[in-house]
């Protein structure tokens, strides 16, 4: 993953800020909302005001086109840029991923990027489903996606993954995002998981397994309620039973079994992972 030098990055950021300012000047977006003074006079606009609006529209369009052509590459290559871009869009009320067609996705190729990523995510989840039942940590998904992209592909961040998954979710593909202990579990099969199941998953994240006693102690549930949730997780193939553990039965989740993907990990990734 190549990082830009401080100097180049700062200059690029400055240029970006400038272009964004030009593209989203209050004046430009304001007139799109037909300012009050025009409303007062009804729908008839004076010719010179029309002319002014027209000029501003043109300038707005030109700035956007300039922005797009300058930053299209940036969007594909730089995860940090994508985050800033998305944040900016959110500020001005634009969702660049809202539809496949339209200015943003066509000119900037933002839609393509996340669409392709979504496909990759689905592939990884399908490939590992037999092992983890359709539940995977964001970390493992990230590692697998990066592996699949190879050395020369564009860098992809966890933020990118979450956005792509949100889109997949919106398309009704059965994807779900479950927050657990500071990270997320990504659900890729439409297994019925209600609040009870989710909260037990969160409990399991700490050790990779969970027990009836632990559930009763932490969540203050009755034994039967705890048992039902664990039975359900077994039934969905998300958990395996361990009867050789000391004391009582342990329910392990392959999705949380860190040993699965811990083998090859770079120094950088590890530093990020360590508290």
């Amino acid at each position: 993953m190549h990082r830009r030098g401080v100097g180049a990055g700062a200059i690029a950021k400055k240029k970006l800020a400038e272009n964004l300012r030009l593209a989203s000047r209050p004046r430009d977006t304001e007139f799109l909302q037909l300012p009050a003074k025009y409303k007062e006079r009804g729908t008839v606009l004076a010719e010179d005001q029309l002319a002014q609006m027209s000029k501003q529209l043109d300038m707005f369009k030109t700035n956007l086109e300039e922005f797009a052509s300058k930053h299209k590459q940036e969007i594909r290559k730089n995860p940090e840029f994508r985050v800033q871009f998305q944040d900016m869009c959110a500020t001005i009320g634009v969702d660049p991923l809202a539809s496949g067609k339209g200015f943003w996705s066509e000119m900037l190729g933002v839609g393509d990027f996340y669409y392709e990523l979504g496909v990759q995510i689905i592939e990884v989840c399908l490939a590992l489903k037999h092992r983890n039942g359709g539940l995977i940590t964001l970390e493992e998904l990230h590692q697998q996606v990066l592996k699949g992209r190879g050395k020369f592909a564009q860098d992809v961040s966890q933020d990118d993954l979450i956005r792509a998954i949100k889109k997949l979710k919106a398309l009704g593909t059965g994807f779900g995002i479950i927050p657990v202990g500071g990270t997320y579990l990504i659900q890729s099969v439409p297994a019925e998981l209600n609040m009870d199941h989710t909260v037990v998953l969160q409990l399991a994240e700490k050790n990779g397994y969970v027990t009836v006693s632990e559930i009763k102690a932490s969540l203050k549930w009755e034994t039967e309620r705890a048992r039902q949730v664990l039975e359900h997780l077994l039934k969905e193939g998300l958990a395996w039973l361990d009867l050789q553990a000391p004391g009582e039965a342990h329910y392990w989740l392959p999705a949380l079994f860190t040993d699965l993907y811990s083998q090859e990990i770079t120094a950088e990734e590890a530093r990020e992972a360590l508290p």
Partner: protein
Amino acid sequence: MAMSFEWPWQYRFPPFFTLQPNVDTRQKQLAAWCSLVLSFCRLHKQSSMTVMEAQESPLFNNVKLQRSKGHLFLLPDSSLKYLWRKAEGRQQTEGKLPVESIQIVLEELRKKGNLEWLDKSKSSFLIMWRRPEEWGKLIYQWVSRSGQNNSVFTLYELTNGEDTEDEEFHGLDEATLLRALQALQQEHKAEIITVSDGRGVKFF
């Protein structure tokens, strides 16, 4: 040639040593066990085993099994390792597939054609990482390729002769070889015969 055996991820997964109650999960588990048994025996060139041996073998016994979550540590030598904090107060760190479950795994292998019981009491078995039919096919292919149909070989020649040095069946144990040839015999592609000081085979 002592290659270090690469254990599959399931081997370090504690529930792997408990027969799973969920049917679908159990199917996956048994498939993983069968695969593990075959690759283990293949690497260690083990063609037969007793159930007692199996119970004591590292194959069904992971003495280093960890029951706590691993954490990443940067060691002084700058290497990165997933290490486990010792479970406080709990010393049980073994994964041992109970003998009833071992029997189930062996039965699966038998059904697939990779295992044959050597005695009525099912105390020892032949384990073939390739089924006899598959070995038979390979042998017959070599015979045809080298234009040696209608030739006679001793069993020893087939598995230890110079001519077969590059073949996969070179070094194959006699019990498996015999069954491979019996499979070919069934297909009328070979006939097991007696030669001067042992057994041989004629190919058609």
